[in-house]
C-alpha cells in the first residue's frame, strides 16, 4: 500500500514539474505566435488585394465563411476578402479569398492546413490558386478534376481531397459574394 502511494507521489511530482516548465515556455512563446499569425494574415491581405481600401471586419455566416472584409473604392464596394473554412485531407483548411461583387475570384491563399507535405501541402504555393482565378462569375469554379486543363489536373493528382476542399470553399465564397451583392 505504502509503495503505491510513493509511486503515485513520484509520478505526480514529475507531471507537476513538466506542467510548470511547459506553462513557462508557453508564457514566453504565446505572444510571439499570436503576433506572427496576425502578421501572416496582414501580409496575405496585402498580397491578394491590389486596389481599394480594406474596410471593417464583418462576422461571417458560421457555415463556410468565418469573417470577411468589404473592400471599397471611391465609396463603392468592389470586392470582398473572406476567410473561408473547409475540410481537407488532414483536417481543416483556412483559405483567404478575394472575390469581386459578381462572385469572380481575384486571388486566394491557403492560410492554415494539416495536409501531407509534398502532396496536399503544395496548395500553399501561390501558383496553385492560378487555376481558380477568373472563375466564379462567367465560368464556374472548377470543383472536379475533369473541369481542369490537363496540366493542372496532373498537378493535383495525389491530392484530390485537398483540391476538392479548396475548390468547394472558393465556390462557397463566390456564392456568398453574389448574395452580399455590393452591400457592406
Amino acid at each position, binding site marked *: 500500500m505504502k509503495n503505491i502511494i*510513493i*509511486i503515485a507521489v*513520484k*509520478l505526480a511530482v*514529475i*507531471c507537476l514539474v*513538466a506542467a510548470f*516548465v*511547459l506553462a513557462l*515556455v*508557453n508564457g*514566453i*512563446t*504565446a505572444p*510571439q*505566435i499570436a503576433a*506572427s499569425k496576425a502578421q*501572416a494574415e496582414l501580409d496575405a491581405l496585402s498580397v491578394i488585394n491590389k486596389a481599394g481600401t480594406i474596410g471593417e471586419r464583418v462576422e461571417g455566416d458560421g457555415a463556410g465563411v468565418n469573417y470577411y472584409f468589404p473592400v471599397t473604392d471611391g465609396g463603392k464596394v468592389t470586392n470582398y476578402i473572406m476567410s473561408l473554412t473547409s475540410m481537407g485531407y*488532414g483536417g481543416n483548411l483556412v483559405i483567404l479569398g478575394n472575390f469581386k461583387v459578381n462572385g469572380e475570384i481575384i486571388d486566394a491563399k491557403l492560410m492554415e*492546413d*494539416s*495536409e*501531407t*507535405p*509534398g*502532396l496536399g*501541402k503544395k496548395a*500553399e504555393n501561390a501558383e496553385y490558386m492560378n487555376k481558380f482565378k477568373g472563375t466564379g462569375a462567367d465560368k464556374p469554379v472548377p470543383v472536379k478534376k475533369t473541369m481542369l486543363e490537363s496540366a493542372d489536373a496532373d498537378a493535383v*493528382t*495525389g491530392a484530390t481531397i485537398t483540391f476538392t476542399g479548396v475548390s468547394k470553399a472558393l465556390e462557397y465564397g463566390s456564392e456568398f459574394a453574389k448574395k452580399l451583392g455590393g452591400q457592406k
Partner: protein
Amino acid sequence: MIKEFTKGLFKENPIFVIALGLCPTLATSTMVINALGMGAGVIFVLVCSNIFISLLKNFIPDNVRIPAYIVVIASFVTIVQMVMEAYAPALYAALGVFVPLIVVNCIILGRAEAFANKNKVLPSILDGLGMGVGFTLALTLIALIREVLGSGTITLPGCVITVPVISIAPMRVIAFPAGALLVLGLLKAFFQYKEGRK
C-alpha cells in the same frame, strides 16, 4: 566513450539496422528540408530526454517508468513545437502534424528504455546525439532520393535546386507513400548486403 556516439551512425543506425521510427521516416521524407527539420527536432528531444531520464533513473519507480518517460518526452516535444511555431513558423507549417508525433517516435522511447535508464549522463548524451544524427542522415538520404526522383527538385533551407531532365517527367510514385516503402526497402537491402559481405 566515443563508441557510444559512432554506433548510432552506421553500425546500429536506428532506421536501417534497428528499424525503429519508421512511421515518421516514411511520412516526412518527401522533401530534403522536411527531413532536416524533423531530424533537428528528433536530435533535440532525444538528447534532452536521454539526459533527464539518465538523471532521474533512480527517482523513477520501475513499475511506472513508461508513463514517466512519456511525460518527459512529451514535455520536450511540446517545447520544440511551441518554440518552432514562434520562431520558425515556415518550418512548423511544413512539418505540421509530424512534430507532435515525435512523442511516439519509437527511437526516443527505445533509447530511454534500452540505454539512458542504465547509463550515466555523459554516455547517454553521446548515445542520443549519435542515434539522432544517424536518424537524420538516414532520413535525409531517403528524402534526397525521393525528392530528386519523385519531384525533380532538391529543397534546401532558403533555396530550391531543380534537377535538369528529371524535373520534366519525374517518377511521381516515388513521392507517394508507396514510393517511401520502396526506397526504404531497397536501401535496407543494400545496407544488409554490404554488412553481409564484411
